[in-house]
Structure formats: structure tokens, C-alpha cells
């Protein structure tokens, strides 16, 4: 397929998506469920791609997503709670003077800076998450990658404990969490930020760095023999992945408007792993599609699993609170055991494939009709 044709198709697809989002934005009231669910899906797509970058493309098993997201979320939240309501949020133990000074400083900045404030908040959250990742990476990434899994999992649990500790009450508001966070202005904003983040990661994967990541994934000894600096590349992938986890954590805070430490428990990481595994470990488009699909089914289409269901007077067994998550964990286990490639395997979405399958279908239909035609003539 010609390049120009591909570009045309991509632009058409982008316009369709934009038009759809615009339609949702204007009819928010009628399509509330689709609106929220798609927004959350886009946010989870960012963190799923970031996990895929580390796990699927570099072969490092990082389980710290929830912890990095917590860092990003809390920093973004502190940036974006309006100064006039901040006292109500910290009504139990009061605001730390440092935060108050910081908020006043933010408010005294010129107007244009305040407009891009949410973006600065997300960037800062991401950078803080990346800094923590770099610190963990130095001791751990020189060793076998198994230790990374346990170190990052431990890190995210400890992060949660520290956030909810009484010593940090004036900063994180302890176990009460932060509320009244300034949200997204529209669903288009959410999708644009998500698209920019994912595009950046795709560009990284396609660069020489990305090829080095894949070499490390396939065989790190051979990669080292080819002159790839293992530690440097592992560290780069892990830090960039954590940066975007932090950004998506900030986006989650903007989406939920109120966060507490329980949001960022290990099960959040497992939810993201579920998305990555279903989408295909090593496929960016797989992660994106699966993030939208899993979120929509989990929050919307399969909600009925959690409520008692009656067909006539017959009550379907098993349907009650918590059944939905049992189903999802069984799906995860089944995909790992029987269908390891997930939706996309290691391949990506491409117009060529679509073109091929369309022309294949066309040929199939033509053959059928021509056969039918000859019958008719006889």
C-alpha cells in the first residue's frame, strides 16, 4: 500500500475519532456512561502502554505502576486543588505551610502560566515518578530481572503506606485523601494528552533505543555482546515507563477528582497487567485497544455480574458483588495459559493488514457471486 494512501486513511480515522469525541462532548448528558468509561480507558491506555514498554519491549517485569501512579496523582492533585477550597480539603489536620506557600506562588504567576498549569502538574508528577524509578533502578537493574518485580511491588506497597501515614497528614491528608481536584475540561483534552504520551512512547520504541530494548528482551547476553549497554538501556526504559505511569496517575487524579491511598493498591497494578496481557505483550496498539475494551466491559457492559440477575423467577447463581472481578481474574489466567499472544501478539495495527483482509474478503465474495452467477446462467 502506498504511503500517501496510508496517511489519508489515518487522517480519516483520526477525524472520525475526533468527531465522535466531539459528539460525546456535546451530548455529555445523554451518554454519561460512555463518556466516563472512555475517559478512564484512555488514561489506562497510557499506563498500559508504559507497562508494555518496560515489560513487553524490554523484558523487565515491573510491578510498580500503582506506586508511580500514586506519586503522579498526589503531585498533580496538590497542583490542581483550587487555593480557595484547599482549607476544606485538609479540614482535619490543616495544610502544611509549604503547600500553602507553593499554592500562593502558583496563583501569583501570570495568566498564561495558569492556563498550562495542568500540563505542568502532569509533567512534574511524571518527573517525580521517574526520579523514584531511577533510584530503584540503580541497585536493582544490574541484577537478574526477577528482583525488579519484587522490588517494584514492594515499592508500590510502601509508597501507599507512606502516603497514608499520619506523619504526612498535612501534605497527603493521610487516609482521608485529596478531594476537589480540578478535572479535565473536556474528553478531547484527555484523549489528546493520552495520544501525545503514547506517540512519544511509540517513537521511542521505533528509535535505535527501541531496537536495543527489543534485543535485550530477546537475549540480554547476546545484546551485550553486540555492544549494547545493558544497564543504561534497561534504566532508560524503566525510567521512561515510570514517567508515563506517573503522568497517567496524574490524569487519573484529574479524572476521579478525589483520590486516596486505597486507589493505588496492588490490585491497580494487576488490573493494568490484565490489560497488557489481553492486548498482547509487546504490542502498543494491542494495549490501547485492550485498555478501552477492558475498561468498557469492566465498568459498564459486565457490571450486571455484580448484581443478582433474574430470568423470570429464576435467579442466576453466582451473580453478586465481586463476581465480576472473579471473572476477570479467570480471564487473565486463561489468556496466560491458553492464548498467550492476547489480542495482537507482538504485531501492531497496520493498514496493510486491514487492506489485505478487505481484499481477501472482496475476493471471497466475488468468487462466491461469480459461482452463483454461472449457476444462474445454466
Amino acid at each position: 500500500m502506498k504511503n500517501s494512501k496510508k496517511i489519508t486513511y489515518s487522517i480519516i480515522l483520526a477525524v472520525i475519532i475526533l468527531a465522535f469525541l466531539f459528539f460525546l462532548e456535546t451530548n455529555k448528558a445523554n451518554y454519561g456512561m460512555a463518556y466516563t468509561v472512555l475517559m478512564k480507558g484512555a488514561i489506562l491506555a497510557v499506563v498500559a502502554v508504559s507497562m508494555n514498554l518496560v515489560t513487553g519491549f524490554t523484558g523487565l517485569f515491573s510491578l510498580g505502576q500503582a506506586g508511580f501512579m500514586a506519586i503522579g496523582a498526589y503531585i498533580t492533585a496538590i497542583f490542581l486543588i483550587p487555593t480557595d477550597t484547599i482549607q476544606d480539603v485538609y479540614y482535619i489536620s490543616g495544610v502544611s505551610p509549604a503547600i500553602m506557600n507553593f499554592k500562593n506562588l502558583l496563583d501569583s504567576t501570570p495568566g498564561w502560566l495558569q492556563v498550562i498549569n495542568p500540563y505542568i502538574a502532569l509533567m512534574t508528577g511524571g518527573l517525580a515518578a521517574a526520579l523514584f524509578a531511577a533510584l530503584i533502578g540503580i541497585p536493582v537493574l544490574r541484577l537478574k530481572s526477577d528482583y525488579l518485580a519484587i522490588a517494584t511491588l514492594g515499592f508500590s506497597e510502601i509508597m501507599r503506606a507512606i502516603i497514608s501515614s499520619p506523619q504526612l497528614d498535612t501534605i497527603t491528608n493521610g487516609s482521608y485523601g485529596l478531594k476537589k481536584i480540578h478535572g479535565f475540561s473536556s474528553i478531547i483534552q484527555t484523549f489528546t494528552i493520552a495520544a501525545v504520551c503514547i506517540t512519544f512512547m511509540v517513537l521511542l520504541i521505533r528509535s535505535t533505543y527501541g531496537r536495543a530494548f527489543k534485543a535485550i528482551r530477546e537475549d540480554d547476553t547476546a545484546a551485550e555482546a553486540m555492544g549494547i549497554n545493558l544497564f543504561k538501556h534497561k534504566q532508560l526504559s524503566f525510567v521512561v515507563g515510570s514517567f508515563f505511569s506517573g503522568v497517567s496517575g496524574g490524569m487519573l487524579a484529574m479524572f476521579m477528582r478525589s483520590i486516596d491511598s486505597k486507589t493505588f493498591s496492588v490490585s491497580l497494578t494487576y488490573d493494568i497487567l490484565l490489560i497488557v496481557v489481553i492486548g498482547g505483550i509487546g504490542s502498543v496498539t494491542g494495549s490501547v485497544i485492550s485498555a478501552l475494551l477492558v475498561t468498557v466491559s469492566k465498568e459498564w457492559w459486565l457490571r450486571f455480574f455484580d448484581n443478582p440477575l433474574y430470568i423470570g423467577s429464576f435467579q442466576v447463581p453466582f451473580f453478586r458483588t465481586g463476581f465480576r472481578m472473579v471473572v476477570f481474574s479467570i480471564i487473565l489466567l486463561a489468556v496466560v495459559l491458553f492464548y498467550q499472544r492476547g489480542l495482537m501478539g507482538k504485531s501492531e495495527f497496520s493498514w496493510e493488514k486491514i487492506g489485505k483482509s478487505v481484499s481477501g474478503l472482496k475476493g471471497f465474495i466475488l468468487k462466491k457471486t461469480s459461482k452463483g452467477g454461472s449457476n444462474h446462467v445454466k
Partner: protein
Amino acid sequence: MTLSTFFQHILTGISLGGAYALIAIGYTMVYGILRLINFAHGDIFMMAGYFMIFSMASLPWQIAIPMVCILTIILGVVIERVAYKPLRTAPRMSIMISAIAVSYLLQNLATYLFTALPRAYPEIPFLKKIFQFGTVSASLVTFITPVLTILLVIALMFLINHTKIGIAIRGVSKDFETAQLMGIRINKVISVTFVIGSFLAAIGSILYFTDRMSVTPFSGTLPGLKCFVAAVLGGIGSIPGAVVGGFVIGISETLLVALGYSTFSDAFTFALLIVILLFRPTGLFGEKNIDKV
């Protein structure tokens, strides 16, 4: 802190450490053989807690305890057969994800079946009897835990060093493929490992929860993580190492809580992991493993 309160805390710490040691053995043995961090081990331990609650509801403790052990062993072996065995030749990452999927499933299943609210752990009356030594007082379970741990470890060491299955276990953990060529039935050895690990987790769970008094679907996560750190501290693959690691973590955690840093007692375990990985990645008793290309 007076001397007697210090001893009191040390005693509690040793008791907690004993329970940790029993769980850490399960991690270290499975890692030694399959090179797998069995993320589900903490949740097996949690499920053992629920088994105890339901067995004690209708049975006396003399029958309930063996029953809990048997149920936990069945759970462990079934998990191995269903979730790990089909992936023997798959990449390491797949089997780790499978372990996480099992952990996720057990947590969600427990939430579904028993709700997320804490359930009261049954009391075994004689374990809760209070003993007084001068100014130090503690319940019987505090004294029993370390003693029982040491006895079980001695029995386990005997099994590993002096029986045929023990030789097979050691052989498999040295070299999986060669052991197979020597006629060792790998699957049997792995099952035995899971039987031992789950049995010790069941005992550990009884000792741990008797002191904690309630079980939730997530009460296995953090002890599980800590016990894996204990196994790394002792040198992964080494049973005495896991025991020492368990005691070290149990005692230091209790002392930190006593000093008023309860939030940071968890962070301490994590910091300990980072320090070990920085300075002695093979742990206290681990052997250096050189990967040949």
C-alpha cells in the same frame, strides 16, 4: 524503653519471625526449583486463614488443624498443576504472570466468597493462655511459634539431606535438565515442593493469625512480600537462610513498631531489600550462581 519491655518486644518479634520463616521457606524452595517468585504464596497463606475460620466453626481444633493443613496442601498442589505446570517450557515472564493471575484470582475469590470485611479468627483456647516470667508476659503461642519453627526446619533439613526425595529436590534445584536426564521425575519433585511449602504456610498462618485475630482477602499480600524479602536476605534457595531472614525481619519490624515507627516498619523491609541487592545480592547464605552462555 525498660529492659523488660525490650524483652517483651523481642519475644513478640521472635514469634512473628517464626511465622515469617515458615512462609519464607515456601518461597525459597519454589524459587530454588522453578526459578519462580510464587506471588500466590502469600494468598495461599491468606486462604489457610479462611480455611481455619470455617473448620473451627464446626470442628474441635484437634481435627481442624490437620484439616486446614490438608486443604492448604491441596490448594497449593492444584495451583501448581493448573497454573504452573502447563508453562514449564514457556518464557519465564509467562509463568510469573500466571503466578500473579493466581494471586489476583485468590484475592478476588476471597472477596467474592467471604466479603472484604475482616473476619474474626477463631481462638484456640490453650494457645492464648498467658504465661508470666517475672515482668515479661506472653501467650503460649508466642513461645510455641519459634520452637515449632525450629523443629519443623530440623525435620525439613533431615528430609532434604537424608532422604531419596530430598536428594531429588536438591538435584532438581541444581540443574533442572540434567536431573531429568538422570531419571528424576520432575513433576513429582515439584509437587512435593509445593506440598512442603503449603504445609508450612498453613502452620505459619495458624501461628500468625492467632496473634492478629482477623483475616481479610488482602492480609496475605504484605506478609508475602516481606517473606520473599526474608528469603532474599537469607540467600534465595537456602532453607536455613530463609529462617534467619524471617527472624531478622520479624524482630526488626516489631522493634520499629515498638519505637513508634509503625508506618515505616514496612518501608524498612523494602529498604533492607534494596541494601541487600546493592551489597550482597546472593544474600547471607546464598551461593553465587554463574550463568553460562
